[in-house]
């Protein structure tokens, strides 16, 4: 896929939207206006943006507990997401799901997920659908380094490999799983090495660099689309914030995070690169920043003004035929 002016601008908009959306969430939680278990993606924006820039409407992604970035990058409506997080009826999931369950299957977004590793077989199934129905689509599973220790990961990679499914497994290696450093629980240096057990090609991308993620995801997705089977793509990235909003981060060396934030911020890196390559100019970036921040403010206002679901909705949507219930 060529990086046209429009695509580069779009990529920046996606990353800025994720960043601003989540900075707003942190602010709202700190103000006591928002509750629930929230895990933010700050620092990892280039991964979702780089991978999803290679996907079309008919492709699927399965996500994680840290799912806002994947949802935004896959085109889920940000106003709906904000309303969902406020528990409103106008939310993506009518207020029933919340942060860990934001989903929009029409947009190819199979859901954030509260169960670590659960999205991996789900994407495998979406890839099976694509293969059987010959849609030409691919399915991407996003998951963390921690999730690569789940049986679901190993079983899914094996299955996708023997069935040559059009799937891409994107492991977002951010160095931490909750409060545990990755190297404490993962004995291989690169999670990409795990693909070898399943005779699956693997790639490693710099997850702080949109362009590197975009290129490597492009290679993996092209292989999947053309019948070449699955790929494990490891994106090396970093979780700027705590595991969840409210995490005091007592377990993590301060200088480690500071170093990543000052030296490797994916948005700053992107801006420097596009300006120096002449892909975008300062006006472009500022225009997007302004649009995004207005969009988020509007989304918050609309969400706060929206109605809560009616208590009777507790028991609707349990079954496909529940509306016919007497």
């Amino acid at each position: 896929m060529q990086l046209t002016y429009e695509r580069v601008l779009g990529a920046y908009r996606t990353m800025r939207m994720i960043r601003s959306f989540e900075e707003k969430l942190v602010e709202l939680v700190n103000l006591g206006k928002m509750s629930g278990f929230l895990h933010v993606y700050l620092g990892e924006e280039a991964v979702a943006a780089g991978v999803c820039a290679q996907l079309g409407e008919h492709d699927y992604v399965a996500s994680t507990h840290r799912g806002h970035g994947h949802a935004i990058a896959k085109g889920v409506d940000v106003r709906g997401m904000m309303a969902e997080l406020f528990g409103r009826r106008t939310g993506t999931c009518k207020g029933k799901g919340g942060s860990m369950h934001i989903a929009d299957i029409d947009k190819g977004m199979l859901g954030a997920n509260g169960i670590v590793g659960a999205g991996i077989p789900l994407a495998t199934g979406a890839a099976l659908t694509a293969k059987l129905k010959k849609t030409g689509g691919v399915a991407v599973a996003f998951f963390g380094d921690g999730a690569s220790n789940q049986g679901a990961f190993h079983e899914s990679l094996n299955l996708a490999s023997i069935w040559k499914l059009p799937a891409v497994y994107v492991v977002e290696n951010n160095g931490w799983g909750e409060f545990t450093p990755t190297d404490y629980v993962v004995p291989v240096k690169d999670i990409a090495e795990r693909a070898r057990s399943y005779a699956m090609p693997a790639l490693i991308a710099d997850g702080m660099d949109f362009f590197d993620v975009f290129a490597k995801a492009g290679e993996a997705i092209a292989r999947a689309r053309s019948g070449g089977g699955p790929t494990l793509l490891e994106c090396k990235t970093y979780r700027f914030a705590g595991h969840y909003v409210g995490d005091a981060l007592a377990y993590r060396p301060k200088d480690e995070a500071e170093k990543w934030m000052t030296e490797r911020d994916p948005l700053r890196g992107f801006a420097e690169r596009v300006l120096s390559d002449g892909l975008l100019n300062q006006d472009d970036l500022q225009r997007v920043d302004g649009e995004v921040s207005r969009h988020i403010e509007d989304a918050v206002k609309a969400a706060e003004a929206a109605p809560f679901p009616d208590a009777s909705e507790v028991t609707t949507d349990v079954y496909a035929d529940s509306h016919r219930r007497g």
Partner: protein
Amino acid sequence: MSRELPTAFAIGEALRIALAGDPDVILMGEDVAGGGTRPAGTDEAGGILGATRGLIKEFGPERILDTPISEMALLGAAVGAAATGMRPVVELMFMDFLGVCFDPLLNQAAKFRYMFGGKARLPLTVRTVTGAGMHAAAQHSQSLYWITSGIPGLKTVIPSNAGDAKGLLLSAIRCDDPVIFCEPKQILFLSSEVPEGDYEIPIGKANLVRQGGDVSLVGMGATVNIALQAASQLAQEGIQADVLDLRSLQPLDEEAILTTLGKTGRLIVIDEATPRCGIASDVAALCVDKGFDLLNAPVKRVTAPFSPVPFSRVLEEAYLPTPQKVIDAVHELF
């Protein structure tokens, strides 16, 4: 001597006593130490809710085992270790995660002793957080104790306060059968009296926490407080309630249930779980089956509706049992 402690601290105290008293006791789970062995300047997390904080410093990384996010291996290995001489305590962060590691409990731990003709001993404890009330939505809020209570070979207990949590956990750890120890979210950070030192609360015995002669309110875990709140409001209108805390769901203290029913003739069971195939239904069935002649009114169940746990605050409030729902049910009986 006793003092007030949050339930999570009482659990930590029980673990400390059990670990200090028996070298075979080990604690396994995700982030139960949590960085405790990492470079200076970083601190241990002590579990997602802080209940195990400090244990790594006292007992070291051989006995306080941080595991990868691999619940199947965690539970399965704990069963294997229990069968071969260790006395493991597993922290399964949320009971919802049973979904990824059910086999070691369902087909292994629960059945070893029976399948092997009584020749196995499975001293395993699984501590796990249950219940709604923190806007944690469908996959982090379930009360699934009805599943483990229904499997022969497993025991399931659920404390309603900090002092009971400590004593029940010590019993669970010292029990030679696999015990699921539920930690209801709504009581984890509530403080109540906790006796000092080592004591056990027997598994299989309910506790009458309030005396009244007009109606029996039967609760478990967080619903005991709901029953107590309802009882004090009912007292103002002249209805005196017995409140029975089940404490143990399997074995179930049938005698205690029938005793309070015999006293009042009216019984309401309050359960945070969904209504089908659950503890509330079991208690109701018991009353009809073995207590029919004692009944002066139908047995009522106040439970969650038959749906997953919703996220939105207003929906979650509608989902959970409340004192008002209990009072409404009581009014139907008079």
